[in-house]
């Protein structure tokens, strides 16, 4: 393998990593704040992707303009789901919420298959297949935009959490539930809001995936798996960690696939996960969130 191909693989990995980072951002937020592993996160990604897809096919709305719609829909869905279903057992042992969201995932994916069949679909816009040539490398426009949006979303979430009153309330809730309740924070609303933000970010990730990769109703679980790997890599509830973890995973996968063959791409991610969990359980940027 020559250096040029390897460098292109690294570049592709970074662009793919942007999507992984975005998928993991909401997942990590929910896990960090609520101590809930949302296994149905990938299903939200799928719903976001299909929202964008149908808006493009039926209405002709550009996917990048469809993304905010997908985010809004997922926000509402996430809010309701947390308020009326998950909230019932949100403080039960994590095992229970894990299984609950697993069940929710099965339902959403199955309904998706019934509604849209298992066909593989993709969006082809005017910009698809075009890219800017930088010396020996090719950077497709849509992928570059995806990475840029992932960076923007991470920054926006960081600013929201760090600078706004609501963000502070979320952080307080994460640190100490009872103390937060004691100073008058409405925990139920904070939880619903956190879950809704997580779902909205999943919707955004789905919208971006629909422009760059093929989509199917059962695409979600793969992304839940990626989100988990990235969260383990970056550290729980750590926004910068999600970004770094996403990029690392993307590069590891594309470089690994270039070296071993494309069939092993996902296996590499999981091998990386086990390795990280063994060597650095607190993640690459290492700060322990919840045990």
């Amino acid at each position, binding site marked *: 393998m020559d250096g040029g191909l390897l460098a292109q693989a690294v570049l592709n990995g970074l662009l793919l990593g942007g999507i992984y980072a975005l998928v993991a951002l909401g997942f990590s937020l929910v896990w960090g704040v609520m101590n809930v*592993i949302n296994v149905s996160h990938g299903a939200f990604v799928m719903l976001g992707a299909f929202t964008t897809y149908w808006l493009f096919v039926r209405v002709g709305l550009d996917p990048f303009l469809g993304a905010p719609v997908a985010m809004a829909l997922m926000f509402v869905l996430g809010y309701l789901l947390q308020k009326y*279903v998950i909230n019932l057992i949100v403080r039960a*042992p994590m095992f229970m919420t894990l299984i609950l969201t697993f069940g929710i995932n099965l339902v959403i994916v199955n309904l998706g298959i019934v509604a849209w069949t298992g066909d593989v679909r993709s969006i082809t816009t005017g910009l698809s297949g075009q890219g800017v040539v930088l010396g020996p490398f090719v950077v497709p426009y849509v992928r570059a935009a995806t990475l840029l949006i992932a960076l923007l979303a991470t920054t926006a979430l960081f600013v929201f959490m760090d600078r706004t009153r609501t963000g502070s309330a979320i952080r307080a809730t994460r640190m100490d539930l009872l103390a937060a309740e004691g100073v008058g924070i409405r925990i139920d609303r904070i939880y619903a809001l956190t879950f809704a933000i997580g779902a909205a970010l999943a919707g955004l990730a789905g919208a971006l995936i629909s422009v760059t990769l093929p989509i199917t109703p059962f695409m979600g679980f793969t992304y839940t798996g990626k989100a988990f790997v990235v969260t383990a890599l970056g550290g729980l509830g750590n926004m910068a960690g999600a970004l770094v973890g996403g990029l690392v995973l993307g590069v590891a996968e594309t470089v690994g696939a270039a070296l071993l063959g494309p*069939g092993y791409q996902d*296996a590499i991610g999981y091998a990386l996960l086990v390795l990280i969990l063994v060597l650095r359980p607190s993640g690459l940027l290492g700060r322990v969130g919840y045990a």
Partner: protein
Amino acid sequence: MLRRQRPAVSPPAAEQPDAEAVRPPAALAAPAPSWGERLRAGPVPWILAAGAVALLLTVPLWASGYQVKFLTELYMLITMAAAWNLIGGLAGYASFGHVAFFGLGAYTSALTIVRLGWPFPLSLLAGTLVALGFALLVGWPILRLRGHYFAIATFGLAEALRQVAMAASAITEGGKGVNVPAVPPPPVLRELLGSSVAANRLLFYALMLVLLGATLLVWRWVSRGRLGYGLRAIRADEDAAATLGVDCTRYKLAAFALSAVPPALAGGLYASWINYIDPVTVFNVDYSVSMVIMTLLGGAGLLWGPVVGGVLLQVISETLWGQFLELHTAFLGTVLVLTVLFLPRGVLALVRGGPRRPSLAALRQHLWRYSV
């Protein structure tokens, strides 16, 4: 330190000193064992169990082929759920990738038969050893993690194995799958039943049933021993258990490795029963899910939990299957959601400790216990 404890039944009547002569005042006396307790302590349950197994063994002689297939598959699923109940039920460590052991058992068994020409029993043994080795190899790093990391790490491993089985086509034939030749049934059976198809049906039915019985016995043995109490302590509070001297990682590893054996055997049996395996079927995440659902539905950490849950789930699923083929997974998901929300301790918890009068207040308290 945890000591081996006896089950909470009174010693049999024969061991007690002359009860009538030295009876202490009624208030001080330990309550005399009830008839139910005496029956349970004696050989009666074992006789009943043996009778039930003997009765079940005759099923293929009079039932239809479809019914026998349904039951064989039911035993297979319950076996795996009962195995999952060791690590998921006793230790509270939910493995979402237990299908990995089923797939490893199926592939090892099938490939040793097809490529190396090994006899069927030896191939089963090989599958078990490979799964056991894999459990120990991956269990050591991932069992040092707490529950939720463990849950997804196991899921990831199973998915990775499926992909490797798909990609390493030089060994596994990849997505084409492996055709496994039929096992020659014992001549006695063939003569008794007239055809080798019927003989094979009975053979695999009986093998699955025996595997299920053996798994339940092993579970019971583990649950009543030092390992079982250690695992329950880990489930209750891992830090406290460690303080009490439970070597948590070693206990969890023992439970994980033990729980890998029945699925591996089931996988080996499956390969030669169905005569065809491919990565999508034998590494299907549905198997992992059904292990979790069956155990939870019946009651996690209880001997009969997976059995009750498995029978309930499969019977409901089979009756609905014909009508709503497309919505089957959604149905499983709904059962899972409702179980977790309303019956977190399983169906058996409803009947343990006698019947209770349902009250709205109790229901409300139960429902809002874990909300914010």
